């Protein structure tokens, strides 16, 4: 098998996968009678046309990037974290709690304190499914989904009771929300609503790279993920690293909540999590579970998520289309990966190709 053939094979599989994904999305768009090319243009290119749109895209890329980094740590350790949505909500709650409790503490102390609280909130929520998986063999897919629903309920319970803005009862906007958080805790803004969280996200990506590829902890996590039995035989406490990776993953999701709150919303309100937890899974997979792939991937999906909010008014396509696309992308990625790693299939194509060449030559 020549090197050229291998490259051509990989390239054509990726191309076929991309075409399949676009076709599937087009079928759904065609069913609702939308103009397919217009819709793709609005979602993917329109947001790039001016700075205001671009900053909105980046705002969405920040939590996606942080969450996806955490998910990639868990995924590499052999555990699929689809509970980032709930972990983010718990991070939001912890962050809001600290900010509301100590409004007068100076900024250099309060901001780190609240950020750490958000990491603990998410981390605990991630640790639960991790330890359940390690000790009791509970499927993390089910436990994390259940914890998402529990966290969502707990979040709205807190907003409706202990965190409720006192002014809310006077004016009654109808949506339960907390008081505006103290200015001591706001993250500075670069332009428009774009805040310094973007730098935090980039720094975290580097940190994750160092953790996973330059430390023994990272090595042991990756070993547990790629072959639990072999890792155990090699003296690695697989259960410990499983639970630890989930705690890290949850802490990242919680932290993303804290950054989002301090940078964008500045008060706890319904809908901050905005499905970022699930989108994070797609971003992590699309980024190849590598920090330096996740950075561009989070930008791309920030684009899709923001673009889909433009779609209802401009082409009459519901914003749910972004969820459809994400589902399709997951399916196509995992399928294409299996085809690429199937050496038997590659062999067969190679032999067919050889036979064809002989016939011609």
């Amino acid at each position, binding site marked *: 098998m020549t090197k050229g053939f291998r490259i051509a094979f990989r390239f054509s599989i990726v191309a076929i996968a991309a075409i399949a994904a676009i076709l599937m999305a087009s079928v759904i768009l065609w069913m609702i009678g939308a103009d397919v090319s217009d819709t793709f243009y609005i979602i993917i290119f329109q947001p790039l046309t001016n700075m205001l749109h671009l900053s909105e895209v980046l705002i969405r890329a920040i939590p996606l990037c942080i969450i996806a980094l955490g998910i990639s740590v868990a995924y590499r350790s052999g555990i699929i974290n689809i509970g980032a949505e709930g972990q983010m909500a718990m991070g939001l709650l912890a962050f809001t709690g600290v900010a509301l409790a100590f409004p007068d503490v100076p900024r250099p102390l309060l901001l780190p304190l609240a950020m750490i609280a958000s990491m603990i909130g998410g981390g605990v929520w991630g640790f639960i499914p991790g330890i359940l998986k390690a000790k009791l063999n*509970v499927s993390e897919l089910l436990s994390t*989904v*259940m914890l998402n629903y529990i966290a969502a309920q707990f979040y709205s319970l807190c907003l409706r009771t202990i965190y409720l803005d006192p002014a809310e009862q006077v004016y009654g906007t109808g949506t339960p929300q907390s008081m505006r958080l103290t200015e001591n805790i706001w993250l500075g803004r670069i332009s428009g609503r774009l805040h310094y969280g973007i730098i935090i996200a980039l720094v975290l990506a580097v940190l994750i790279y160092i953790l996973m590829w330059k430390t023994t902890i990272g090595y042991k996590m990756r070993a547990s993920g790629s072959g639990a039995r072999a890792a155990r035989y090699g003296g690695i406490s697989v259960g410990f690293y499983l639970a630890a990776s989930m705690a890290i993953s949850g802490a990242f999701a919680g932290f993303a909540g804290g950054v989002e709150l301090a940078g964008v919303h500045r008060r706890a309100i319904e809908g901050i999590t905005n499905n970022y937890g699930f989108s994070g899974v797609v971003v992590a997979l699309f980024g190849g579970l590598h920090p330096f792939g996740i950075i561009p991937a989070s930008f791309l999906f920030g684009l899709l998520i923001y673009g889909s909010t433009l779609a209802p008014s401009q082409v009459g*396509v519901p914003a*749910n289309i972004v969820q*459809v696309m994400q*589902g399709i992308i*997951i399916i196509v990625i*995992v*399928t294409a990966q299996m085809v690429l790693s199937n050496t038997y299939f590659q062999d067969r194509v190679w032999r067919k190709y050889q036979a064809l060449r002989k016939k011609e030559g």
Partner: protein
Amino acid sequence: MLDIITNMLSMCIPFSVALLLASLGEMFNQRAGVFNLGCEGVMAMGAFVGMLIPFLAGQGGAVAPVYNVLGFVSAALLGVLFGLFFGVITVTFRAPQGIAGIGLQMFGVGTAGTLFRHFVGGTQSIPGISDIDIPLLSKIPFIGDVFFSHNIVAYLAYILVPVAWYILFKTYWGLKVRAVGTNPRAADSMGINVTRTRYEALALGGALAGLAGAYLSIAQAKMFSDTLISGRGFIAVALVYFGHWHPVQIMGGALLFTFAQTFQTVVQSMGISFPYELAVMLPYVLVIVVLSFTSRNQTTAPTALGKPFNREIRT
């Protein structure tokens, strides 16, 4: 007090049907060795289509029962399509089932939401199907309310429990399903087509999940919304573990979880001063607790569950 208890118990059977149907379907999938986490998405599609047909036929008014039947049938057919689609991904291409299931769930829920906004718009109710009182039996105090005055689909769903048991344990096809989920290589060497059997099980599982969704929209809520399914698909998957892959135990599990769910309805309607959110949380907490107790010793689990089969590779 007795009123409240009767009320809760009489909700158990009709409200448990969606869970029951979906978990019976998932049981067939898992018995064949495929872990279909996309159940939630298939239910969402079934719920949408099941509601769409009577809605379009009646435009909000009364509809002939045939349209409700048509709604159920098309939901089941759509479920078959989704099941086969999942088969292409996980059986033919052998993609990892957990993450592929998440993809299918997002795809299903997203598509249902997108199409719903386009074809229906906002919240629209449909007449749905009404309860029938079984003569004489429904007049018995307490027992009549709890067991004998529900809609026809609920009764049919419960008849499916012994039927599923018979199919799984007493027919040749059931034996094939269990064989490919337990030891696909041995089944293959005995001339059973593993791929085909898994596809068939996925089609059946998808049909049942589609019906479960349609039941929710046609018979239970009598409308569709993005949050209609709200995790029932995932609970159904958990119920299969809880019920040890056996139809009768799964039925018990479905009833238990529905009992926990009715608690929120009681809190809401009776005006008990108990945080509503905590009541909604209850079934989800119960799933985690139950899984913690039952996941350790899974000696009854299909041994090839979650493992793609490849004839070409020796293991």
